[in-house]
Structure formats: C-alpha cells, structure tokens
C-alpha cells in the first residue's frame, strides 16, 4: 500500500502547486464568494434581523456556487495536455487518481472558502455563537462538494462549455449537503446544543462521498479515455 502513497501524494502536491502558481482558480472562487456575499446585503437593505436569519443560507449557497466554478477544470487540463492518459498508465488505479484530484480541489477551493466564510459572516450579522459551528460545518461539508463534483467533472469532460451541464447534473446531489450544512448553522444560532444531529448527518454525507464518489468518477474517466 505504501508503494501507492508516493504517487498519490505526488499528484496531490502537483495539483495544489499548479493551482497556487496559476492563482486563477483560487482567486476566482474567493473573489466570487466575496462579491456575492458583499453585494447581497446592499440589495436587501440594512435589516439586521433579516440578515441574521438568512446568513447561514447565503454563506452556504454562495460557497457552493463558488466551488462549482472551478470544478469543470478538475480533469480538463490533464485531458488537454495528455497527462490524463499517462496518469492512467501509472501505478495508481483510476479510483485513487480521482480521489487525489478531488482532494487537491478541496485543498485549493473548499479550504480557502471555509477560511473566508467567517469574515463574510460579519457582513451578514452572523451572531457570535454561529462562527465556530459555521467553520466546522464547512470543514465537514466541503469535501462532499469536491468529491461529488469530481463525478460531474469526469462525466462532462469532453463536452464543450460543460460548466452549465455539470452544474445541472450535480446540483441535485449537492442539495443534501446544502440542507444539512445550513441547518447545522441555523440550529447553532437558535439553540447552541441542537446542531449535533444535522452536523453528524452532514459528516456522514461527506464520508459517504469520500468513499463512493471516486469509484463513480473513475468509471466516468475510464469511459472518457476510450474516445
């Protein structure tokens, strides 16, 4: 098993460093998140009670959309420059390749967005007791976005401008993450101890995605390689 860990981490490290050097993907996701969350209160007006009520939903929905922006590129660059074929002849099974690339996507989008979320919470008048749970719920929920999203990215790999198709295909699968992510934060604001059930279900969704999504993504990749 340890023989497979080296190529796995090599791939994760390369993807993270490419995203970092490129800067584009991380910057677009963060910039989009920042813009949506700062513009929304301007549109709604200075009703602090209303902002507090919608804060969990806005923070989660905007995070999901920001993460979706870079999903379509997850396998695309590797397909375009031929890396995907060489990756497929490597020692890692396609399942592990899909998992490594999903993990790299989470590190470069899910994680930075989670760090930005509490700062944006200030703009939406999120009450103090919500911040810890907000970060925890996003840490627990964003892996599901990256891993489930990888399935959509693999399926829409050869479609031109596949971004919209990807969003349409995958949005239903993101709904459970969204519902329980928002619910966790909302429960924590209303009653500090009542967030556990929603949080545990959210974690369960992520863990399930971690195990099952790479299998589906690998099947889609195998099909894409046959073109």
């Amino acid at each position, binding site marked *: 098993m340890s023989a497979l860990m080296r190529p796995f981490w090599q791939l994760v490290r390369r993807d993270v460093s490419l995203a970092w050097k490129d800067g584009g993907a991380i910057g677009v996701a963060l910039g989009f998140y920042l813009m949506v969350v700062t513009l929304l209160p301007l549109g709604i007006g200075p009703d602090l009670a209303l902002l507090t009520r919608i804060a969990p939903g806005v923070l989660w929905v905007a995070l999901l959309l920001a993460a979706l922006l870079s999903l379509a590129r997850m396998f695309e660059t590797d397909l375009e420059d*031929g890396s995907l074929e060489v990756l497929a*002849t490597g020692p890692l099974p396609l399942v592990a390749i899909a998992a490594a690339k999903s993990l790299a996507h989470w590190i470069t989008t899910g994680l930075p967005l989670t760090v930005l979320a509490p700062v944006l919470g200030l703009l939406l008048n999120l009450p103090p007791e919500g911040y810890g749970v907000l970060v925890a719920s996003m840490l627990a929920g964003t892996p599901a976005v990256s891993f489930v999203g990888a399935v959509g990215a693999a399926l829409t790999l050869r479609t031109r401008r596949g971004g919209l198709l990807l969003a349409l295909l995958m949005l239903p699968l993101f709904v459970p993450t969204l519902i329980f992510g928002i619910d966790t934060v909302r429960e924590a604001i209303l009653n500090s101890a009542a967030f556990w059930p929603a949080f545990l279900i959210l974690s369960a969704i992520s863990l399930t995605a971690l195990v099952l999504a790479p299998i589906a993504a690998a099947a889609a990749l195998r099909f894409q390689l046959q073109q």
Partner: protein
Amino acid sequence: MQLVAEALTSIRGGRTLFSGLSFAVGAGEALVLTGPNGAGKTTLIRTIAGFLTPASGRFRLEPGDAEHSLGEQCHYVGHLNAIKSGLSVEENAAFWCGFLGGMPSRIQPALAAFGLTGLRDIPAAYLSAGQKRRLGLSRLLLAERPLWLLDEPTVSLDRASQEMLTGAMEGHLAAGGLVVVATHTPLALSQSRELRLGGATSEPARPA
C-alpha cells in the same frame, strides 16, 4: 519477454480498421507500425495501452506480471506531451518520476539524454515545440517499463533530437526491452521489423 497479439479486430466509428491482426514482439525488438493516415496505428497503440478495448482478440505480455495490467507495464507517449506549462522542465520530470515510481537519481540523466540539462529551470511554457517533445520523451527514461509505446515520437524533432531518441530506444532494446512505434519517419534502429497497417494485416516475416 514477449508481447503477443492474437487475432485483433478494431472497429472505430463503424469502420473496421484492422481485423485478425496477429503479431509478436520479442525482447530487444522494435515493431515499427507504418501505413497511411487513418490506417489504425494510433488505435493499435492505444489498444495496447489499455485505453481502447478491441472488438475481438487479445494481448498478453509473456512472462506476464499478474499484479500489473499491460498499461502499467508500458510507457505511453502519444501525440500530446503531458507536460505542465506552469512547472519548470525539472519539476515536470520530477513529477512523472515520482508518479511513475522511478528513482529520483534518474531525473538528471534522463534530462541529459534528451539535451534538456541547460533548460531545466525554465518554465515549460517557454520551450519550443521540439523541446516540449523532448521533455515528453524524457519520461521514457524516468522509470523502468518493459514496453514502450510511441505514437509519432519524431514529430517536430530535428535531426539531432531524432538521434537522441533512437539512442534512447537502442539503449532500451539492448537492455531487453520492447518497443512498438508508429512513425512516418524512418528510424535508424538495428533490431526492427515493420508492420504495415491498412492492407496487409497478416504476420510479417520475422527475421531469423
């Protein structure tokens, strides 16, 4: 070691590219695939690499390695170079070396064999087409694989670079490796045999 193909048939887009194709490549031997455009050279190479499933027939590598698929025992160099323009020449080589399970000590000799030592700190985006091709080919020397599958490896290579490539191929053959190469450019290889696709699909005469 021997690569054996038995009665391969490949159908792409409703068109039969080849049917009943059988051949064997022995250790230290290069099989040169020739034929007009669209004859199925790339299809055959991608089929051996495991990306495409033949309509009928099968391959095997003897003596086989049960733990690894045929694709994992080959180096595949297709039309694309599989290099990242954001990374330097050396970083590209180091990634493939680590990913394909080669020793880090092989990186510098591999770059030197394709004349890339002086360019190793340059981002791959600034390389010319031929230099990119050489970087793609240097992957062959980064990790040990018995079978090399090369699809048009000489595209955009100048004469000196083609000699670097044939030198690397000769070295691989001398060590008992196998090469299957599709090309339109005649390669100066000592141990090679031609398989012409598009027309004759029987076993070509083997040199004694």
